[in-house]
């Protein structure tokens, strides 16, 4: 796999020099779209963002949208925890004051049930508002296209980010010990154990916080298990899931003290500080390592390890939607169309802070040359990556699961009886 990777990088770098100017020209500009961008000139829309590298990288281009359309965009941005609390609370109360806002696909069934988001179909299919040839929906990765109707809902969202679970590691720690990047879970455990024994630090870690279900999902799928089956019935105590959680539990024996408080931020901080050498989480966190000052010589990213069922990482994509109570839905759609266009997503990816879910962007030589390791990993990961199954009671289900597994980490419970117990709790919740 590493050999393939190096060949690919070499080819891309060569290609980059040849096609650099061509690629820049190949990105279609908004002016080329056969729609009247200035149709709603002089009006204003309100946009709510969650603080995220995507928000940071799109905001500088918003004056371009205002210039293009004559529409004024008022932006508000909230930290993630506040955002995820405020949005449903305001939508429930009917006081939500934004036309466009960021969404997560786990919430799709809830949002569709409450009709908090507007169906986008009528705007996408309106030739006055959308130039389908210019927008090129098929350019989105298949997984990103599925986000639009995640949870078998109506089409109410467009994917804006491309994140996939990857192995992120400290190159220097592995190099100092003469270790290679693990490619399977057995190798990962072996390498993690060796690092822990030889350095006294944590060899490998995954989240131990109540959000631990996110990185664990890729492990479970790679072992052939799942949380819910296709009929939304719990299968959390299946032999495959039990085997995956046992592996996860063994990996977590290498975790630093206090890991039950570790969400992704704590893992990033521990990795930058050299307290842990490897972790399995969103590819976006590779950029977080760099943003916190770790050099590319020390920060590495590689594809997700293989389990008995193959390499099946958990994918994640933030999306963007229109509020159903917005009085300016056509304007809001123009904004979304522009923000998710090839040109803007290309510019965002070039910043190196975030990757976007368009095939053309992730295969662009200039984007690859900017960050070859992460682009290769994400491109590969998105081909095999899976989304967890959204459910109306998703968060209610994940809570007892995560909390029980925290007790497994602390050695208070065994894996198998715990998952049997969770299975019963889930069956009860889903009655």
């Amino acid at each position, binding site marked *: 796999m590493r050999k393939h990777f190096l060949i690919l990088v070499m080819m891309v770098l060569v290609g980059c020099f040849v096609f650099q100017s061509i690629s820049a020209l190949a990105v279609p500009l908004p002016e080329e779209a056969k729609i009247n961008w200035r149709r709603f000139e002089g009006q204003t829309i309100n946009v709510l963002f969650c603080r995220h590298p995507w928000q940071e990288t799109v905001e500088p281009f918003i004056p371009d949208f205002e210039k293009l359309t004559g529409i004024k965009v008022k932006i508000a941005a909230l930290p993630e925890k506040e955002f995820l609390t405020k949005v449903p609370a305001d939508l*429930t109360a009917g006081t939500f004051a934004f036309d466009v806002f960021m969404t997560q696909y786990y919430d799709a069934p809830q949002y569709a049930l409450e009709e908090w988001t507007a169906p986008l179909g009528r705007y996408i299919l309106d030739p006055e508002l959308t130039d389908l040839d210019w927008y090129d929906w098929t350019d989105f990765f298949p997984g990103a296209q599925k986000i639009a109707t995640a949870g078998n809902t109506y089409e109410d969202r467009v994917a804006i980010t491309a994140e996939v679970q990857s192995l992120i590691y400290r190159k220097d720690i592995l190099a100092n010990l003469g270790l290679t990047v693990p490619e399977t879970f057995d190798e990962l455990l072996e390498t993690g154990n060796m690092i822990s024994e030889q350095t006294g630090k944590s060899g490998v870690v995954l989240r131990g916080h109540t959000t631990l279900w996110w990185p664990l999902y890729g492990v479970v799928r790679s072992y052939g298990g799942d949380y819910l089956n296709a009929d939304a019935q719990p299968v959390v105590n299946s032999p495959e899931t039990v085997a995956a959680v046992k592996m996860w539990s063994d990996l977590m024996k290498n975790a630093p*003290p206090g890991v039950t*408080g570790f969400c992704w931020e704590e893992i990033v901080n521990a990795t930058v500080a050299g307290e842990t050498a490897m972790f399995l989480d969103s590819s976006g966190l590779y950029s977080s390592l760099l943003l916190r000052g770790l050099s590319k010589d020390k920060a590495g990213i590689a594809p997700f390890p293989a389990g008995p069922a193959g390499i099946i990482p958990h994918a994640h994509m933030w999306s963007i939607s229109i509020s159903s109570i917005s009085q300016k839905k056509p304007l809001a759609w123009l904004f979304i169309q522009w923000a998710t266009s090839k040109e803007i997503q290309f510019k965002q990816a070039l910043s190196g802070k975030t990757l976007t879910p368009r095939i053309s962007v992730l295969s662009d030589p200039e984007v690859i040359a900017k960050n070859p390791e992460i682009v290769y990993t994400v491109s590969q990961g998105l081909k095999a990556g899976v989304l967890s199954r959204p459910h109306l009671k998703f968060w*209610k289900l994940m809570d007892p699961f995560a909390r029980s597994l925290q007790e497994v980490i602390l050695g208070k419970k065994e894996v198998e009886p715990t998952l049997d117990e969770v299975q019963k709790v889930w069956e009860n919740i889903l009655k």
Partner: protein
Amino acid sequence: MKTSTKGFRLPYLLTLPITLVIIALVIYPSVYIFYLSFQSSVAGVKNLAFVGLKNFVQVFSSSVFLISVKNTFIFALGSVGISFVLGLGIAYLLDNIEKGKSFFRIGFILPLAVAPVVAGLTWNMMLNPLYGIINYLLKFVGIEGLQWATHTDTALLTVMLIEVWQWNPFVMLIIYAGFQVLPKEPLEAAMIDGASSWQSFIYVSLPLLKPAIIIAVIFRLTDAFKSFDVIYTITRGGPGYASTTLVIRAYLEAFQFHVLEHAAVFGIVMLIISLIISKQAIKFLPK
């Protein structure tokens, strides 16, 4: 006759604004919570359906509910109990020291000025098992590896101690104020009768301080039962359910799981507990 009617109506007119505010902010939400607790939001908040006592049965039969009730009582009684002992001790010492009284008084009151969320975040950093200063200092006296808020054995105790740190000054202040107004005669009489300092404190000062102590304990107890900020910022009720209290669970049900009817049931349970405590407390208040 006209004057008397006017006089009769005036108090109602004067209290009307505050009555309307209370109806809007207290009565309406309380009634709505009761209404919500008998509904199901399975078809969406806009399509609530009456389900009788189903929500109460579901909540009461869950193991999380019993754990939440147990943790709430341990947290409230434990933190108020420790605050009382510490507050009384510090107030006694402050009352008896000769020098630096103002300095210590201000020093002890400082935690009250810190916002609970800020206190929670700061303590969270200090107690971090990996980088926190507390474990770093404890290492010098041979204590290693305490996981504080991140272990099921210590999480509840940790948040209780932070609650004590934050609110102990409140108890101390009220009791200290009680010390300031103690009549001197009974203490002098006890001294003449040969009572020791300890006997004077236990048999004379403490009974005289009873009104101040009761007020401090009642205020703290009602507050501790619904304490949220510190627990949420530090543990979010975890790990496992180790520090899950009723208010934390109500919050999670409402804002994370979006099951408003279950949150309403937790809210009603908290309301009933608060009413029982308040009713019992009123009996002890000075007439």
